[in-house]
């Protein structure tokens, strides 16, 4: 690529780091205040006790575990999608990968926080870790909750490294393009990167190995989260299809989260030239595919339970479809299937706005799906005398809202400190050897004109 276009690309993608408007500070202050309120609420819950929540016998898992499963699901947007696109060498991945990988890192951190919040006495969290205590009592490796610890630790470590390694050459770029404190800070972060062929080859090898390793780990994480449910003999939980069902749902919600994040970045950071309609089109098609897969899983699950006609499972099925949870259930169906299918299957509607509308629907729908997996089953276990009702209390609502604010805040701060689109990968993609074929170039140009 020419020197002028290389410089323009660097300038465009470094602009968010170097220019700050009052709106950024206002947004950070707004989101930060919500996060602070959430932390205060958590402290209040710790001080007053777990009775401040709506959790009671027999519904011991509710909002917090719903949020845990939801955020772990959202985390599947990034590393998994990015790793697959890297392995198949999809050229259109270049502006998307880092936007996606960041979601994984932050969503995993937030998701992993919820079991700790749910502990009631979070300072005893370290009991989950495998260490020899003074009485040589080790964690029980036969417990699915310990599997979670190992799976999330591996996925978080792998995802953070998968995100950070390709950032090193971009840190070197910021080092060379700035002065003052930025030069010093980014100089330290760049670890003395220069860009010799050896460094590039080692980086590419490491990224290939990590991409191969991270895909089965990502699948295992949500499978293991599903084992938290399916290992228990609870109606509508004890199912062999929960693993793939959870993984499909996670990828589904993850793609939706990614589309929303990309649309926000495109609009607020003025990245229209880089996050193009083509990227939303492709992700929209993936979202449509996952919507169909999700509908297939729901149908297979419901048909099997209805046909088996086992009383305890039928009770849970009907309370969600016809009983007190029916409004939430049918909202979920509309959000997860009707809206995405309608919007994304019609080419005219598969615009950036259409993809964002469908994605918001999916995010809402998938949160409801997690809630409907957790609460109705626990509230309708076998004998009716042990049935119960759950109503969320303000502490749970506040902490839930605060985590959405925390996710947004972390994303905003990240995009302020790190180029949100990998600059060196964009430049590498613009070398003549990477230029699209004439047919692809024509199609991209047409799509760009139609949807810009």
């Amino acid at each position, binding site marked *: 690529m020419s020197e002028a*276009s290389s410089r323009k690309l660097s300038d465009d993608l470094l602009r968010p780091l170097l220019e700050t408007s009052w709106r950024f500070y206002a947004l950070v202050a707004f989101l930060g205040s919500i996060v602070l309120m959430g932390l205060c609420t958590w402290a209040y819950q710790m001080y007053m006790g777990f009775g401040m929540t709506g959790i009671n016998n027999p519904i011991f898992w509710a909002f917090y575990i719903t949020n845990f499963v939801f955020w772990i699901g959202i985390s599947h947007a990034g590393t998994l999608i990015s790793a697959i696109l890297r392995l198949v060498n999809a050229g259109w991945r270049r502006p998307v990968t880092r936007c996606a990988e960041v979601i994984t890192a932050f969503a995993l951190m937030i998701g992993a926080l919820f079991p700790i919040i749910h502990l009631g006495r979070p300072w005893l969290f370290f009991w989950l870790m495998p260490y020899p205590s003074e009485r040589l009592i080790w964690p029980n490796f*036969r417990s699915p909750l310990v599997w979670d610890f190992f799976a999330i*630790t591996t996925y978080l470590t792998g995802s953070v490294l998968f995100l950070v390694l390709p950032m090193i050459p971009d840190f070197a770029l910021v080092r060379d393009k700035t002065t003052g404190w930025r030069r010093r800070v980014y100089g330290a972060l760049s670890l003395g990167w220069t860009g010799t062929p050896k460094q590039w080859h080692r980086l590419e090898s490491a990224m290939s190995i990590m991409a191969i390793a991270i895909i089965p780990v990502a699948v295992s994480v949500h499978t293991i989260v599903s084992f938290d449910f399916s290992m228990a003999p609870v109606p509508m939980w004890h199912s062999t299809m929960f693993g793939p069902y959870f993984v499909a749902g996670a990828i589904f919600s993850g793609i939706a989260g990614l589309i929303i994040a990309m649309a926000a970045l495109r609009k607020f950071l003025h990245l229209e030239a880089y996050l193009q309609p083509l990227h939303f089109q492709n992700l929209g098609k993936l979202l449509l595919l996952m919507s169909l897969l999700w509908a297939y899983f729901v149908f297979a699950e419901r048909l099997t339970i209805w046909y088996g006609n086992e009383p305890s499972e039928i009770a849970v099925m009907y309370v969600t479809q016809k009983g007190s949870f029916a409004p939430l259930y049918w909202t979920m169906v509309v959000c997860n299937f009707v809206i995405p299918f309608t919007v994304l299957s019609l080419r005219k509607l598969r615009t950036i706005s259409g993809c964002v509308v469908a994605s918001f629907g999916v995010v809402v729908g998938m949160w409801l799906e997690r809630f409907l997996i957790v609460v109705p089953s626990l509230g309708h276990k076998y004998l009716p005398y042990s049935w119960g009702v759950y109503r969320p209390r303000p502490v749970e609502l506040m902490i839930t809202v605060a985590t959405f604010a925390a996710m947004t805040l972390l994303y905003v701060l990240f995009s302020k400190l790190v180029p949100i689109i990998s600059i060196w990968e964009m430049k590498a993609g613009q070398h003549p050897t990477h230029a699209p074929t004439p047919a692809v170039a024509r199609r991209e140009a047409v799509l760009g004109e139609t949807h810009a």
Partner: protein
Amino acid sequence: MSAVYALYPDGDSAGRAVNGLRAAGVSGDAITVITGEPIEHHEFFETDKATWMWYIASFGGLVGLLFATWLTRMTELAWPLKTGNMPIVAWWPNLIIMFELTMLFAILSAVITLLVTAGLPGRRSKIYDPRVMDGRILVGVADPADAAAVERALAGAGAAEVIRN
């Protein structure tokens, strides 16, 4: 310490410079090439491609597998409590821990290998010019035995400016 280098606008001219340096008697190891992004399909960029990283990552994974096998078995036998009618050493759940630690160790091995073999963190190379970040390709030699020959080779490849520092 001295260095002689030049910046080139594209891979072809950088390739000519590398070939010119070789023709002038400079060994391949002594030639420094620095780019702002990876440049494929150029012979001068294909150096140092061979790596043991895949083997090291596989070995790391094997170490993780063995460690997880030892950890799960040892802890279950250290406090042999029957749980859920499972055997004391329950291989089905242990497989999950073994898989996760295998992958974790493989990933960490790959990253450590990257850092060590790429010299990260490290001091910046003797030859460096921030203009590589604008798409130029740096070709040069540190501490050249015959600086004049190196200058001639670099200029002969079409460099607008040969820098000596």
